[in-house]
Every structure is written in C-alpha cells, then in structure tokens.
C-alpha cells in the first residue's frame, strides 16, 4: 500500500478510487519485518485492508508516512486545534455564540479569554471578530472555541478588528498562505506594511496604512486563487510599481 500511495503523490484522485494492500511475495527470514503504517488525513478512509478516496483533489504526503487529499473547497468543517476568525452573534449569560462558518455555531465561554475571571468579564460585543482556537470539534457535538492557549496566555488570540477588511477566500488558498515558507506570503510582505489575520475557516482580515492599500491587498489575494506562480509574480510586480 505504501509504495502504491507513494506512486500516486501529486496526482489527481477522485472519490471511489481505492488502494488495496498487497502482501509481499517473499518474506525475509533475516530482516525484522516492520509493519507498514500509513496515517490517513482528510479525503482518505480506511475500510478493512483497503484505502478509499472520498474527496476529489491532489494526493499529498509528508514524511514519514502521512497522506491526505488536498482539495479546493469553500465550506469549512471544524477541526480540533485549528485557529479561525469567528463573528460573535449572540451574547447569552456565560457563553457567546460564534459563527465560524461551519454547519453549527460554536460556543465561546467568557472565561476563555486571557485574564478573564468571574468578576472581570471580557469586553465582547455582538458583531465583534474573535481569533480563536477549537478545543472541541467533532461531528456529533457543538464545537467549542477558546481564546487562550494551554498556559492561559492570549498568544495572539482574542477580539480584534478595527478599521480592517474581512473577506472570504477558498480553504485551499488559506492553506497555501499558512504553509511554512509560503512564497505567496513572502511576496505579499514585500509590497507594503500590513496586518493580516488568517483564519483556517476561509476568512481573511487585512489592515494596511490606508484604505486604498487595504483594498489592493484584498483584491490581490482574491485574484491569486486561480493563478500559476509566474502569473502571480507578474501581478505582484505590477502592484509594487503602483500600476494598480
């Protein structure tokens, strides 16, 4: 299975494709037999000794044995540990309801902010943007967000957003932006100074020194979704020269 998966890395897979486990013909008596372990990410499902593809996209791999299907989708499905940009919709008693773009509203406790106590409530209003992390996210339960890390510090999370612009892009572009040493992010940094908040749920928030520059960055990000690297570099070069 490992070898045939390796073989398909970088190729486009469709739902219904399958990989089956083929035991080796000869068993070596001298070497210790190591069981093949494969870690399946999004888009791959285990069924008995077969591996089924359930999403269309490109097969990607990470050392040593992780495999997943990289697809371009728009709808977000909450996953534990991911950081998202949420919009507070309801303030009721001790929890806030937050729209995170998934199928259900997430709950956010008022105690899950840095320095918050029962006396000292955080100042959160309906309509505020919160950058927060999922602590509970599974298909059967209401997802739960927090704005603190495991040591109780905000670590960049919490209420934000004054004078910036919030917009939506596809989840594929978000993952490209968040990838380590992302070329897209590096090119963006060279344009002009700006703040960028990236939520795994497809929401982006940008703020630059002027409204015009904010809009330029937002438009660039929205348009580079369906561009090759070369086309993107050309567009950014033109933007840097002030042609846009």
């Amino acid at each position: 299975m490992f070898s045939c998966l390796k073989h398909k890395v970088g190729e486009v897979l469709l739902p219904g494709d399958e990989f089956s486990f083929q035991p080796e013909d000869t068993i070596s008596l001298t070497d210790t037999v190591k069981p093949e372990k494969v870690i399946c990410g999004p888009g791959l499902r285990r069924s008995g000794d077969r591996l089924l593809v359930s999403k269309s996209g490109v097969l990607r791999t990470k050392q040593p044995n992780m495999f997943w299907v990289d697809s371009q989708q728009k709808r977000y499905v909450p996953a534990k540990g991911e950081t998202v940009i949420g919009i507070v919709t309801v303030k009721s008693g001790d929890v806030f309801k937050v729209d995170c773009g998934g199928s259900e509203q997430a709950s956010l406790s008022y105690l899950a902010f840095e320095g918050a106590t029962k006396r000292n409530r955080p100042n959160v209003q309906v309509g505020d943007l919160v950058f927060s992390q999922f602590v509970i996210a599974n298909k059967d339960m209401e997802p739960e967000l927090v704005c603190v890390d495991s040591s109780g510090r905000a670590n960049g999370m919490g209420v934000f957003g004054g004078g910036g612009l919030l917009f939506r892009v596809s989840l594929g572009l978000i993952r490209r932006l968040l990838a380590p040493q992302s070329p897209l992010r590096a090119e963006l940094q060279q344009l002009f100074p700006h703040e960028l908040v990236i939520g795994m749920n497809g929401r982006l928030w940008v703020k630059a020194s002027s409204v015009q520059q904010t809009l330029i960055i937002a438009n660039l990000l929205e348009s580079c979704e369906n561009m090759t690297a070369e086309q993107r570099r050309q567009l950014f070069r033109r933007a840097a020269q002030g042609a846009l």
Partner: protein
Amino acid sequence: MMEVCGSSNVSLREFGCEQSLLSRPDGSASFIQGDTSVLAGVYGPAEVKVSKEIYDRATLEVLVQPKVGLPSVRERSQEQCVRETCEASLLSSLHPRSSLTLILQVLHDDGSLLSCFLNAACMALMDAGLPMSCLFCGVTCAIHADGQIITDPTAAQEKESRALMTFAIDSTEHKVLMSSTKGSFSVHELQQCIAVSQKASEKIFQFYRDSVRRRYSKTL
C-alpha cells in the same frame, strides 16, 4: 475551464462541464450535453432546521428549478430520482445534523434532461468537497419504434421513441443506482439498455477525471 468530448462508438452527444463557476454556493457546476444544459449549486454542510434534523446523517434536499414557471409534479419526481442517487453515493453520516441543499436549474432542455441533472449534481457535489463513496453518472437510452437503441437522445428523438429509460451508474462497480423508465419494452431490451449505459458511463467517468485534473492543474 470548458472541455468538450467528441463522440465515438457508443454515441453520446458532445458534453462539456465547468466547475465552481458561481461564487456564492459552496460547490457549483454546469453540465452541457448537446443542447441540454443544467446549472447546479450545492450548499452545505450547513445549519439545519430542527424539524428536518436527522440525528445520524445529513439531510439532503434537492430542488429542481424549471426554465419558466414553478416546479410541478414532473420536477418533483425528477428531484426524488436525483436525491435517491445522491444519498446512495454520499457519505452523509460524516456530517450528522446538517443540511445539504442541491439546486438544479434548467438552462435549456433538449432531451436526456434527467441524466444531465445527475451529471451536473455529481460534479457540483465533487466541487463542494463532500465525502462520497463513489461517483455516479446518468445515461438516458431511447428505444426507437424499430427496436434501435439510441443513447443520449435529443428531444425530437425522445418524442419518436417507444420507450425511454434513464439509469444512474456508479463509478466503482458500474452498477445501476437508480432507474427511471417510461413506455413499453421487453426484459431483454432493458438488459441491453443497461449494458449500453454501462459502456457509455465509462466515457463519462473518464471525462470527469480529465476535467477535475484540468481544474487542479495549476496547483499540482
């Protein structure tokens, strides 16, 4: 992103497809077979009304919008055919208590409308990234008065035919997921039509693969 596939031995009309052409829905596709053209949009997994909530799987709703006027009985029966096919291939238990909405808009009807709905639906579901156990496609066969089988008939050919059948076929085992028939035919003719549809489906699945590969070509 438009692609066109020419016809050879099992004669299908030229077909084309475009994915994610709408900005608001989570997944969208347009599918064209000859002069028949359908636009599909998928929303979901989204919030569901409490009255329609199913505790262990997603609620799938299919809406067929005719070109003019309001949906009638004919559209209702087409909706049901498409919904049952989609339910068979979608892994809806992975998104319990959520709603999936599929909207099919007729742009032009020149025969084989139900199979075009099925193809557009499959492409749109794939574009939305919903988990599926297999793909499906729709093939329409018409039996002419002299017993000749025509695949993917036009509206004029449909009118002249003695019997009309539409099959939904899955991509893994090429089995029939749904069938909708009209008119009179023998058992032998039915089996012949299924065999022809299975052969035609291979061509459509190959086309699906090519158009998805084209779509991801920039991120390879």
